């Protein structure tokens, strides 16, 4: 909209005024920075993936041909999917509660959410390690109330990764969902009730479909972010369920195999971009608002 009026007025004034910078001109410095610090290093890494140790697609063949590596891919998708699912399950009721609670209370909850987002990722992950370990608070409480008799294994496995990552991803689900739910007119739900829909039917037939754009946007964001996550899986996960980012780190740091590292990174990049394309295709930025 703004861009259109800009260029239109620029055209209109063309004879009297010098050419005004277009929107594209204004993004050039940013694009330059992006090229220098992002595109260039990635391109160099990717180049090494097809040149080291010998030119060709050998690294990719090895990556795709080995069941060990494929298991890492599968695990990465599984963990990301699980984290996304649990985040949605928890995020939806939270976003709904935020949307209907008195605005003063809601701003307190938002402050807590944002505070947790601004806290250092490592600090938050270590905090979960402390809480979840065998002698941690959670196990002590569970034993204390007699729910279990010996500590549950909550870290260095899938449970630990899921808890830690879900906690970190929750705000990314809650915020877009909250935006969409807030825009739903309460009168629409009143109409559904008078039409005879009970709470469950209103939720499934009206609220969820109307919140779908927010859920999809949040879920895709969480899924994509989870795919490349390193710190939390490395600290809270076990060796049995390694994720792709951990594998890349291992290639580069332990094995000093830049070729394989670059190949794995490219696969991750391609998958991420493909998912991003899906998001743009179905929920283009202007459709995120729903209604």
């Amino acid at each position, binding site marked *: 909209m703004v861009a259109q009026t800009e260029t239109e007025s620029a055209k209109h004034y063309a004879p009297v005024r010098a050419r005004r910078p277009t929107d594209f001109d204004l993004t050039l410095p940013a694009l330059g920075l992006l090229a220098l610090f992002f595109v260039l290093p990635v391109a160099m890494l990717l180049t090494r993936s097809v040149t080291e140790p010998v030119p060709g697609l050998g690294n990719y063949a090895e990556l795709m041909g080995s069941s060990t590596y494929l298991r890492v891919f599968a695990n990465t998708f599984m963990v990301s999917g699980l984290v996304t699912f649990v985040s949605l399950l928890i995020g939806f009721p939270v976003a709904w509660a935020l949307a209907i609670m008195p605005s003063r209370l809601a701003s307190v909850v938002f402050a807590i959410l944002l505070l947790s987002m601004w806290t250092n990722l490592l600090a938050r992950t270590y905090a979960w390690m402390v809480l979840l370990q065998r002698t941690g608070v959670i196990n002590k409480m569970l034993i204390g109330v007699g729910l279990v008799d010996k500590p549950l294994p909550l870290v260095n496995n899938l449970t630990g990764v899921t808890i830690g990552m879900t906690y970190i991803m929750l705000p990314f689900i809650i915020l877009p969902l909250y935006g969409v739910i807030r825009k739903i007119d309460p009168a629409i739900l009143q109409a559904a009730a008078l*039409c005879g829909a009970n709470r469950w039917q209103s939720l499934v037939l009206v609220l969820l479909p109307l919140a779908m754009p927010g859920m999809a946007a949040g879920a895709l964001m969480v899924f994509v972010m989870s795919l490349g996550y390193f710190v939390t899986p490395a600290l809270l996960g076990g060796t049995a369920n390694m994720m792709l980012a951990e594998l890349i780190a291992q290639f580069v740091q332990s094995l000093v195999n830049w070729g394989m590292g670059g190949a794995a990174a490219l696969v991750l990049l391609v998958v991420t971009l493909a998912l991003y394309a899906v998001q743009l295709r179905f929920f283009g930025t202007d459709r995120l608002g729903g209604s």
Partner: protein
Amino acid sequence: MSKPFLQIRGIRKEYGPVTAVHDVNLDVAQGEFLTFLGPSGSGKSTTLYILAGFENPTRGEILLNGETLLATPSHKRNIGMVFQRYTLFPHLSVGENIAFPLKVRRRPKAEIDARVRAMLKLVRLEGFEDRKPAQMSGGQQQRVALARALAYDPPVLLMDEPLSALDKKLREEIQHEIRRIHQQTEVTILYVTHDQEEALRLSDRIAVFSKGAIDQIGTGPELYANPATRFVAEFIGDSDFLPCNVVSAANGRAEIAICDSMTVSHVPLHGAASSGAKAALMLRPERLLLSRTQSEAGLPVTVSDITFLGNNVHVTTKTSKGNDLSVRLPFGHEAISGLNRGDAVWLRFDAAAAHVFGQ
């Protein structure tokens, strides 16, 4: 009126210190079209929301066919409602919207399809079932909302200012439709509006709301001819009020003195007024007779403005005490040919068509 179908008994609603509805009592007959008319904030919507089950009354009772409605949650009340805002489900097509109440009632598909077609026919939107609400005009959306609310044959249909977002011409068109649909379906309708013309055009009876209470209930002509309170007199039809002194009052009639120059007897009196008290005399512009020649029975006034309004001419006059009084006459009436501002004229009225309201 047949036996009370819907009974509203002493309904009161308090929001903290605010009393939104004051002890409303109302009997509605089956098939009746009853309108809540009143200014914004007078408690009309709150009363309707209590009927719908969105709000619980602080006290009072609502009976439908003699049985309490208050114990039933909204989704089991089987009541239809059309809202002020557009409330079609935006993700469903027109047909799916109308089918929604039948789907949640788990009716067979063939019955739902037939019902959707019948409803679309009723609101004259055949062929629109695959459109999305966003592709329809405001008036069409409200007609679909009406079809959706009627699809499950509710005993009572609530309408909360359903046309207030539409422009005047469209509003009149849909008022016409609503009247036809009411006659066709014989559903009992409780309608809310702040527009007196809409209320008069649609309703069998009108309940005039003021400050959370019903001032008067009656047919349009009853309210117009016999307003119980000054508020009703002001709200229904045009009226002017002159300060007057009560000379004597008995049996609902009063003898009054206006402008120190004239006394009128047998004027219908509303509210308490003892002799010597100050009161307000209500006069309707179309019930005043204007005469160019002095007469004993006429109130002397001066013409302050003349407005041509198509088939009517509106003459504004000032009494000797400086109060405005309007007279409405048909265009071309002999009494106003050649009339000018500043002219002295005399106004007469039938005592029975005037009203005195005690202070």
